[in-house]
């Protein structure tokens, strides 16, 4: 922690605050993951970690390195962006998988297969398989 000593106090406080915020959110998220009752509820918990949990730590890191290296450091933002973009993909794929399994097992907790619908034009994505 050689550079830490050179850090101005305000920066140290800011870094620490963001760090603790991020870590705490991540921890609370996982607490939710263990404590929430159904899978669909648990699905919400990790987003704490991936939203402001990540945000906090990323901010802490950015402030820290910007101050210690005396130049603006943005690369951590990329982590924030990537996590924000990729986590939803994971969660929605997982949730839908769970949904389909529950429906296949006729679990009453979940909404059944949609049977009615309007004749909407198909806007097919790339997946042709």
């Amino acid at each position, binding site marked *: 922690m050689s550079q830490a000593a050179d850090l101005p106090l305000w920066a140290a406080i800011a870094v620490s605050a963001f760090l603790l915020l991020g870590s705490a*959110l991540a921890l*609370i*998220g996982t*607490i*939710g993951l263990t*404590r*929430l009752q*159904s899978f*669909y*509820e648990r*699905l*919400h*918990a990790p*987003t*704490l970690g*991936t*939203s*402001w949990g990540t945000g906090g730590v990323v901010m802490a890191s950015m402030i820290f390195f910007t101050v210690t290296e005396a130049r*603006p450091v*943005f*690369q951590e*933002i*990329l982590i924030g962006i990537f996590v*924000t*973009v990729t*986590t*939803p993909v994971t*969660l*929605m794929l997982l*949730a*839908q998988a769970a*949904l389909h399994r529950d429906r296949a097992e006729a679990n009453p907790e*979940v*909404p059944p297969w*949609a049977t*009615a*619908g*309007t004749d*909407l*034009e*198909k*806007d*097919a*994505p*790339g997946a042709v398989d």
Partner: protein
Amino acid sequence: MSVLPYPLLSLSLVLMWMALNSFTIGHLLLGSVIATFASWGMAALRPHKPHIRRWHLLPYLIGIVLIDIVRSNIAVVSIIVAGRRQRQRSGFLTIHLDLKDQTALAILAVIVTSTPGTAWLEYNSSNGTLLIHVLDLVDEQEWTDLVKNRYERLLMEIFE
């Protein structure tokens, strides 16, 4: 195939390159070359190409999403910390979407899912219905409004 099939993408990639390395002219040049190559790779995939009509609304969108995320963070933290003492009412919610643009849908999905407390479950393209799950489903209409009025309308303005 044009040399720069996705200018916005290429620009983002250059920025990414420079963020990863450093903001120097050298890396601007190098990054441009690499970004051009990478965007050719993108072009090879022949993806659905979005038409952004009112891109100046994008920062606004990002802004409201960030605020919403902060809000819902607090909400969800309180739910988790409160634990079983306060039994939350979670549930499924079906919303009919008018949004058709694939990219816009993707952005909506990212917004909905990134926001703690709401999760995008299933979109049925044949009738445009969206199934979401909400952790704290006190008022269904409030959530429907959130998605329909706050996000979908904005996205439709940007993309359609």
